[in-house]
């Protein structure tokens, strides 16, 4: 393998991207897929490339993407979080209830604090019990969702409070754009910067890549993991508050299954399921791909069910490509 990549490199030196560069550019695949799908959808549906449709897609993508960034950041540190969809629903519900009682900024802060606490618990449970986070957070997901359904009895609550947080989070700001689009973009850039250009980012990669080595080199791997569990939960919570502010309605069954969409976005974006590797820009495009498929398929006249089938197929392809890339590294 090494000779092959060496040869490729010398042959193409200075002209095109060398194989070794592409190999270490995990956004590559998802951006290609993004362009292909964009082309197909624009050809088959004349309305696809309209400002209205694009902003509509952006709205869905932002809500999913914010959650996906948090998950990906945690996955790179080598852990999973399946409880995000439940945190999302719980946060929406709590936010509406508290805002109706007090005011929306306070409700927002309390909601985020609770989400951070749930993330902290996920981390502690995973590290203390030594069960895989996949199982620990599956438990948390079922526990939270079940509790929420039981407490609310499946009833919805509508938002009847002030407009402060909804305006900051998601109310139209013109031409179909919403603040959530800006949040998504800003968070993508911030997380990307932290991951690639800070000491903490280096510790996240190392923790996911090889936790024993990271520890031997003086990285506090447990702290890194717990912080990332908390961030994952916080991002899911933010996403929940945004959605609820858009619908003005909270229901305990919101976001069921969304954790898998978020993980799919991360994997399609080049994040390794095994940890240690991934990019936030990749996740950005991964989430975009998902949102685009959702509206694009409908606009092409396909029944909405096809969305899931497509996501499934693309997920398998993406995960396979990731694994191949990883083999090349070995």
């Amino acid at each position, binding site marked *: 393998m090494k000779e092959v990549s060496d040869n490729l490199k010398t042959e193409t030196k200075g002209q095109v991207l060398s194989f070794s560069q592409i190999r270490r550019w995990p956004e590559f695949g998802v951006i290609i897929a993004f362009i292909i799908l964009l082309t197909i959808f624009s050809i088959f549906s004349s309305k696809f490339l309209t400002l209205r449709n694009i902003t509509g897609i952006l709205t869905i993508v932002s809500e999913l993407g914010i959650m996906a960034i948090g998950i990906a950041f945690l996955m790179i540190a080598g852990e999973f979080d399946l409880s995000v969809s439940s945190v999302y629903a719980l946060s929406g519900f709590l936010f509406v209830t508290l805002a109706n009682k007090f005011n929306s900024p306070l409700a927002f802060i309390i909601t985020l604090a609770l989400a951070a606490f749930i993330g902290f618990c996920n981390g502690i449970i995973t590290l203390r019990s030594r069960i895989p986070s996949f199982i620990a957070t599956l438990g948390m997901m079922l526990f939270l969702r079940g509790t929420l359904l039981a407490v609310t009895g499946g009833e919805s609550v509508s938002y009847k409070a002030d407009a402060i947080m909804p305006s900051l989070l998601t109310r139209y700001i013109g031409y179909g754009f919403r603040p959530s689009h800006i949040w998504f973009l800003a968070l993508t850039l911030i997380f990307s910067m932290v991951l690639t250009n800070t000491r903490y980012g280096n510790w996240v990669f190392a923790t996911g890549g*090889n936790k024993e080595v990271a*520890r031997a080199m003086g*990285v506090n791997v447990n702290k890194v993991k717990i912080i990332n569990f908390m961030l994952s939960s916080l991002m899911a919570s933010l996403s929940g508050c945004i959605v609820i502010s858009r619908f003005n309605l909270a229901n305990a069954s919101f976001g069921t299954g969304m954790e898998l969409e978020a993980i799919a976005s991360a994997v399609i974006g080049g994040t390794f399921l095994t940890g*240690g590797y991934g990019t936030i820009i990749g996740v950005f495009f991964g989430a975009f791909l998902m949102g685009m498929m959702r509206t694009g398929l409908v606009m092409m006249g396909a029944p909405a069910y096809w969305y899931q089938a497509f996501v499934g197929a693309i997920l398998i392809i993406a995960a396979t490509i990731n694994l191949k890339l990883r083999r090349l590294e070995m």
Partner: protein
Amino acid sequence: MQKITPLVKMVDIEKNFGAVQALKKVNVEVQPGEILGLLGDNGAGKSTLIKILAGVFPPDAGEIFFEGKQVNFLSPKDARASGIETVHQALSLVNVMSISRNFFLGREPTKKIGPVNLLDRKKMDEECKKAVTGLGVRVRSPHEFVSILSGGERQAISIGRAMHFKVKLLILDEPLTALSVRETKEVLRQVEKAKESGVSVIFITHNVYHVYPVAERFVMLDKGIKIGEVYKKDASPEDIIEIIATGKMPQELKS
């Protein structure tokens, strides 16, 4: 003999892994500026002993003094902060990370841009390249992933890293496995250079002939017990091999 405070003093160290008694009341001292050869067969407990010193795990019993003060390292971070740098037998590099990111792991240089501290990636790449090339290893680029390097190249990078940072004690756990003759020479030269600059070194190996030219004292372990301790002036390499093979010190060497 002389009354200088040893840099490291490990007293009655014990460590069990389940039923395996990896260390039984082991006492080891390292003097300032000394190269100590730590020898013994497979499973003798050499790695376990230095992992305790490096803070990887705590001992079950015993005390550790560093520069005369009792220490209790809770993590490798503590040991590193005190000036103990270790090249572990297996735990040294993250495969899916670049060479320069590995090189500075846990000690990344930063530069302030506005209100935030960002990685100084240029400095990381340059210093890493310089340090590794200094050991006689040609790395194509500090951005290469560790996973595509050969065993010898990886070893050289871990050693280059340990030597790069100013430390008081350098622990090398079988540093010469997988190294070429040229790289072996270079590492031994670097070890002596480190010693000249006042650094103490614990050098673990199976091969007495590797460490004999550079070390001035040897400690032998067998099945978790310290079976002997000799100065170079008192024993030939063959004497040391004899001690390891028989598991006991000959009468004339005991003092």
